[in-house]
């Protein structure tokens, strides 16, 4: 049954890609059909994946198509089911949000058709990756996802920026895909087969295991956006249409996380503690650098893209902890780390797509990317502001919303580091947790900045002042996600109970302790160790609020509320330029963590056309300057060297062919 539903999801996605082709140029019909079918694909995915996850069982299927010696294998187990639910959730919301959002593109120079086709193929590719049970099908889905992703990023190809971003994305995706292919190759070489059952049975030496692990870490890491492989992310996400950014950031990165989990926990089997440590360290670096770079951005979508790097880092911290525990024969704690990472994957998909949808609404209404030109949007767009605020609270890991639960679980997993025999690991893990705490606090600072600058205060431009509420479909989409953020924050016990089917399958141990206290209490290790009563927290806040409000309500106390001008120190009216800007807000942090960014800052002198002078501030990315540009230079230089063999003379080329022919003959004989 679940597998049938998953099939239906695939078919709906395919139909969503193909059926609009029949509609010709009628945008309305294209929109209706494509997004309706996309939503149905998402719903079917949720149903199928959810059933598989709830039942905790695996379903296998071998298709009679594929390579001659390798039929296509599909399977649906709790792990793929869980990620299928994530994909489905965001797809459904994107389908609700999309029709109103793409209205903007209908007047643009592009046709609508490519957008809907590749969106559907994108979803199809992701679902296929999740269902794949052999390397071939996996790579097929993976490439479908990557290439349709490229098409979506490059959709508005009239802008130079979009083209270069899409190129970087394509390049890095393919390097990543190559590495993943090699990683599967190593496993297949030892396991005598490209399907996952053979690969899982492969017995690898530590050396080959490390090679396979390193290849997979890099390959999936590029897609997931780990530091320093993240550079495509802040380029590609801002230029894609917003609902696509939401899906790329919320879901596509999760598919990479799925690939990593599948590879490491399922196929690789025995993990070594040092791999876990590496994952933990990379996770810490990604989390911290991601949020620090995000703080310096003033393009809203770029900022959100850097936050994806941060959250992927947090997920990898959980995975690293899980791997360390698993290699030390502590499967119960490994399950806790894994559950924390998976829970955060779900949460990140929800709040990050919510934030991207919000950014899309702002973009559509005010045509502003730049935080420096927003301000006061809460007056024009109160519903969007409310949903965006919920997204901000969730991503900043504040109770009682969902982001907090998964970070809390990660902290609890880290706290159990004392159970390790090695004191060194036992003392490195708390430091990692401190990094996580720093990350969370910086994220809160960043989202105070975002919400405060974009939605509060006075409008900094005419467009922001004139911004109106987005169309109902867009609001409903955001509302659903905001509600889900609250639901998954309030009922973590139920969620953890369901998710623990995954470690039950991968590690043989679930989290029976976590749900032992009933639906009200989440007790990951034991009731004595730590407990979190999320519903009680919400109830407590509401009760305290009610109490204070009732005690102080104006009808009882005869105090009036007057509206007056903001205090201006007696200097005359305040204007929008007197407010703190996004750059100003982040300035103390920029100064404290100065060496983290390449900062280019100068004061421009006063000139005739520029009265009062100006200030130029550019915050770059070390990864670009220290790694990618260097690699690029080396490649160009070596290409120049290699170009020497291009003599230009036809006889030289004939000689090359001749030598090759001789060589081949020699090899064959």
């Amino acid at each position, binding site marked *: 049954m679940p597998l049938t539903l998953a099939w239906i999801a695939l078919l709906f996605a395919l139909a969503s890609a193909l059926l609009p082709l029949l509609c010709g140029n009628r945008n309305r019909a294209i929109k209706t059909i494509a997004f309706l079918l996309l939503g149905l694909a998402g719903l079917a995915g949720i149903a199928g994946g959810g059933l598989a996850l709830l039942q905790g069982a695996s379903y296998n299927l071998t298709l009679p198509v594929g390579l001659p010696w390798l039929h296509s294998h599909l399977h649906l187990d709790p792990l793929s089911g869980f990620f299928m639910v994530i994909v489905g959730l965001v797809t459904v919301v994107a389908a609700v949000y999309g029709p109103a959002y793409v209205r903007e593109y209908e007047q643009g120079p592009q046709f609508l058709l490519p957008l809907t086709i590749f969106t559907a193929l994108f979803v199809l590719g992701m679902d296929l990756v999740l269902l794949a049970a052999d390397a071939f099908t996996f790579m097929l889905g993976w490439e479908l996802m990557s290439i349709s992703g490229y098409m979506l990023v490059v959709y508005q190809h009239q802008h130079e920026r979009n083209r270069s971003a899409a190129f970087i994305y394509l390049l890095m995706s393919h390097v990543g895909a190559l590495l993943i292919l090699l990683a599967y190759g190593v496993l297949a070489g030892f396991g005598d087969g490209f399907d996952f059952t053979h690969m899982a049975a492969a017995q690898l030496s530590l050396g080959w295991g490390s090679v396979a692990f390193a290849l997979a870490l890099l390959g999936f890491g590029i897609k997931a956006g780990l530091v320093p492989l993240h550079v495509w992310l802040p380029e590609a996400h801002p230029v894609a249409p917003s609902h696509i950014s939401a899906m790329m950031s919320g879901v596509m990165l999760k598919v990479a996380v799925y690939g990593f989990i599948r590879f490491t926990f399922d196929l690789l089997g025995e993990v070594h503690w040092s791999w876990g440590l590496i994952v933990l360290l990379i996770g810490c670096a990604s989390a911290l650098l991601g949020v620090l770079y995000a703080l310096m951005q003033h393009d809203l979508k770029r900022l959100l893209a850097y936050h994806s790097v941060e959250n992927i880092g947090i997920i990898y911290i959980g995975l690293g902890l899980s791997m360390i525990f698993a290699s030390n024969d502590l499967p119960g704690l490994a399950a806790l780390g894994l559950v924390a990472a998976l829970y955060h994957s779900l949460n990140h998909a929800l709040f990050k797509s919510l934030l991207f949808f919000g950014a899309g609404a702002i973009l559509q209404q005010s045509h502003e990317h730049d935080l420096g030109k927003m301000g006061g949007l809460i007056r024009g767009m109160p519903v969007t502001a409310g949903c965006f605020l919920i997204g901000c609270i969730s991503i900043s890991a504040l109770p009682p919303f969902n982001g907090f639960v998964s970070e809390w679980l990660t902290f609890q997993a880290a706290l159990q580091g004392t159970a390790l025999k090695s*004191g*060194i690991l036992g*003392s*490195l893990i708390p430091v990692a947790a401190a990094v996580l705490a720093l990350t969370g606090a910086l994220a809160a600072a960043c989202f105070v900045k975002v919400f405060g600058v974009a939605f509060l205060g006075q409008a900094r431009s005419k467009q922001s002042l004139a911004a109106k509420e987005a169309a109902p479909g867009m609001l409903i989409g955001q509302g659903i996600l905001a509600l889900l953020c609250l639901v998954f924050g309030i009922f973590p016990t139920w969620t953890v109970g369901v998710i623990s089917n995954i470690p039950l399958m991968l590690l043989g141990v679930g989290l029976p302790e976590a749900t032992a206290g009933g639906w009200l209490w989440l007790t990951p290790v034991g009731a004595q160790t730590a407990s979190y009563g999320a519903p009680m927290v919400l109830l407590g806040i509401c009760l305290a609020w009610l109490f204070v409000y009732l005690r102080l309500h104006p009808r009882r106390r005869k105090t009036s509320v007057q509206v007056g001008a903001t205090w201006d120190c007696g200097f005359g009216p305040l204007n929008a330029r007197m407010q703190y800007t996004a750059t100003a807000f982040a300035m103390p942090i920029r100064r404290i963590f100065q*060496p983290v960014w390449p900062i280019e800052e100068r004061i421009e002198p006063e000139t005739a056309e520029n009265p009062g002078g100006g200030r130029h501030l550019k915050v770059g990315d070390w990864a670009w300057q220290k790694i990618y540009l260097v690699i690029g230079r080396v490649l160009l230089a070596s290409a120049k060297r290699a170009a020497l063999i291009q003599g230009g003379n036809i006889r030289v080329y004939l000689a090359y062919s001749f030598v090759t022919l001789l060589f081949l003959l020699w090899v064959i004989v």
Partner: protein
Amino acid sequence: MQMAALPLSEQMILTLAALILFTSFLLLAQTRIVTLIHTFAWQGALLFFATVLVAIVSGRHHLLISAGLTLALKVFFIPWQLRRLVVRLDIRRDVETVGSSSLIMIGAGALVLFSYYVALPIRELSMLSTRNTIAISLAVILIGMLMIITRRKAVAQVIGFMSMENGLMFAAVSATYGMPMVVELGVAFDVLVAAILFGVFFFQIRNGIGSLNVDHLNRLNEVD
């Protein structure tokens, strides 16, 4: 947890060990010269208390002599001498800027972890309940060395050197209940002589290069 099995006096020794390590961190971070000297004196005082405690707990009364030496030299004489020098050199108000101090602190934390790792096998050899302090003393020694490397002013470097010596002393006292008396006396005498010699050298350096900043001495290579 074995902590509960230890008598209170030994818990005190462990606490003193931790505090000595803390003073090492303070020395590393402190930029004012006079405060630096005071912190060094405090480290000596903590070492004195630790030695006295060990002497009483273990019943080895010759340790009291070395405790007395510590008190006289490390707590009173050397700080007094250094302070006098600082006054005479008129560098009391000098504030040394330590480049990227947070990185150095993180490095020091890593050194502590490293010395724990190094000391693990040694720990197995000792049967004393205070053997856990070996890692701490090693860390104090390494941090002293780090201080010598990171500081530019000669006075701070001397203090780093002395705090290394404190670490050695503490290792000897806590891990093996003290070195033979002769060695201890010798070491104490060495330190005393060193302190006086350093005093002389300060004047020489300053007369030579007009500053106590050893960065002016970077000609220690053969390329000319």
